[in-house]
């Protein structure tokens, strides 16, 4: 008897899952639109992870692209240099990203860094990552990047199969998020995002929960980053650039609604839509993008999902 209740409680996610699994019908045979839809799934999962970091535990990691990129490079370089199967190197990459994320979190909690300071330390890491990739030419091939075709993941080379692989990865990320939020950890996250000192005084081990959130989120970032690297056919610094990953993820989260379950999904979908609206403007696209960003944020200050929720249930707000 509990299953229908659970389905109802997670109704928004079930709906999103059904809608997303039907997307390939909509895009038809167009590989272009299917690719965009696949990218959207990647951004959705990244935003779910970022929600865990910035939304729930107030850790502004400005290195989502660098963490995803670290995992992708670890996975691809290991597969190339040692001839290992991607099924081994991808988890290794995700583990590396997770360890790095946990390290940043641990150090910043221990040093009592404020939001902006964590932001800048991680931003510095992003820049270091890019310079390392450019500098370690013998492994990474610098700006040009590494080709990942034929390294042992033929599944990701078929567009439709790849779409469902990424849908499964997104489902896995959302599941991890829901499990964390459903258990005692969720309660701890809520307490420490309200007021860290009070949470600490109430006996919550703030360091442990923040590091846990960072480790899980970075693992998701890395997992998707590594798979995306193999799907993309090439890993290069520009694939995981700050402008290409961090800023879209931040915008998607704020647009969808921080600290909400479906906000990251809605935000990333909206972001993908905006990108497509802006594309025909050619050289002026950056300008139009900036205008849209400002207008949308003045209109939906708290994010789309919280505003919709308030519309639908005025009493709950």
């Amino acid at each position, binding site marked *: 008897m509990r299953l229908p209740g659970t389905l109802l409680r997670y109704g928004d996610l079930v709906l999103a899952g059904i809608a997303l699994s039907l997307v390939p019908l909509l895009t038809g045979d167009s590989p272009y639109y299917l690719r965009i839809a696949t990218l959207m799934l990647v951004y959705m999962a990244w935003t779910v992870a970022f929600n865990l970091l910035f939304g729930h535990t107030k850790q502004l990691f400005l290195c989502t692209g660098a963490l995803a990129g670290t995992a992708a490079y670890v996975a691809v370089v290991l597969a190339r240099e040692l001839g290992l199967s991607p099924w081994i190197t991808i988890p290794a990459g995700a583990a590396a990203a997770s360890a790095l994320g946990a390290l940043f979190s641990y150090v910043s909690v221990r040093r009592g860094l404020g939001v902006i300071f964590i932001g800048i330390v991680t931003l*510095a890491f992003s820049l270091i990552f890019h310079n390392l990739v450019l500098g370690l030419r013998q492994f990474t091939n610098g700006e040009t990047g590494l080709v990942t075709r034929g390294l042992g993941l033929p599944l990701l080379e078929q567009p439709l199969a790849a779409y469902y692989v990424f849908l499964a990865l997104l489902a896995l990320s959302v599941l991890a998020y829901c499990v964390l939020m459903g258990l005692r950890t969720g309660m701890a996250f809520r307490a420490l995002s309200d007021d860290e000192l009070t949470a600490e005084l109430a006996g919550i081990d703030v360091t442990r929960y923040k590091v846990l959130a960072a480790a899980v989120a970075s693992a998701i970032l890395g997992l998707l980053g590594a798979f995306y690297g193999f799907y993309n056919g090439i890993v290069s610094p520009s694939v995981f650039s700050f402008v290409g990953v961090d800023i879209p993820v931040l915008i998607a989260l704020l647009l969808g609604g921080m600290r909400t379950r479906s906000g990251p999904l809605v935000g990333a979908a909206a972001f993908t839509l905006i990108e497509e609206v802006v594309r025909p403007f050619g050289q002026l696209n950056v300008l139009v993008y*900036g205008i849209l960003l400002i207008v949308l944020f003045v209109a939906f200050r708290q994010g789309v999902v919280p505003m919709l929720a308030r519309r639908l249930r005025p009493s709950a707000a």
Partner: protein
Amino acid sequence: MLAILFDGIVQGLQLSLLAVGITLIFGLGGVLNLAHGQFAVFGGVATALLLGTGVHPFLACVGGIASAGVLGLLVDRTLLVPAYRYHGEERLLLGLILTLGLSFIIDGYLNYQLPHFALSLQLAVHSVDIAGVPMRTASLAASGIAILVFGALFAFLRWTLLGKTVRSIIENEVGAELCGIDPARIRTLIVALSAMMAGVAGVVQGLFSSLGTEMGPEFTILGLLVAVVGGVKSINGTLAAGILLGIVNAFASHYIGAYVAFIILLSAAMGTILVRPRGILAGWT
């Protein structure tokens, strides 16, 4: 050795000039300005356009810097109004996104309108000897300008009533308001002033080597880095942080390659934040 040290100090002064505006706007307005580098580029571009019309170079520079100030004034009075309605974290987030959007607009427009733009100013004398070290006059002029600007800023904050008002708002906005200070007006003034200082940094970059329309994001990131290493709210800290990182960068790029130098610069910034999380001069100012 001495030449590298000089070089580092000169670079560091430029970094501080760029960062001090971010520090001031954050201290006073609670907004982390992500379009600050774009203000600098805007000032430089305006200068170049004025130069193109045949105005005297000095007047062109003044005009360019002033137009950056006008841009700052407009931004504060229009774009940032929604952000100022909120306080604390909400204002910070909304301000972050609004200024990010602004930076895209400025970058997008300038890159579209002036794709192959470069501002470079030449001085009559190329280099002079100081303490036996040949120095480019451009570097000397650049550091002279930076020292002048900082001197004026410190004098303004220390000895004028308006400057004291500014410091009181940075210290405690509500308290200042209770004393009859209108934070909104002072804020507009400071944003305009900060934009002008960014404009100075942009023009000086043109003096050094050349300024392109694509340099905005780089300026913003460097400025942010320096401002945060300095403690985001401390002006002395920003100055010290800029000079420190400038010297680190000069030595690293002289003895080691360019990629590694930048990594060392970033690691130094990270390290300073971790060792002194409240800013390098925290507790002394």
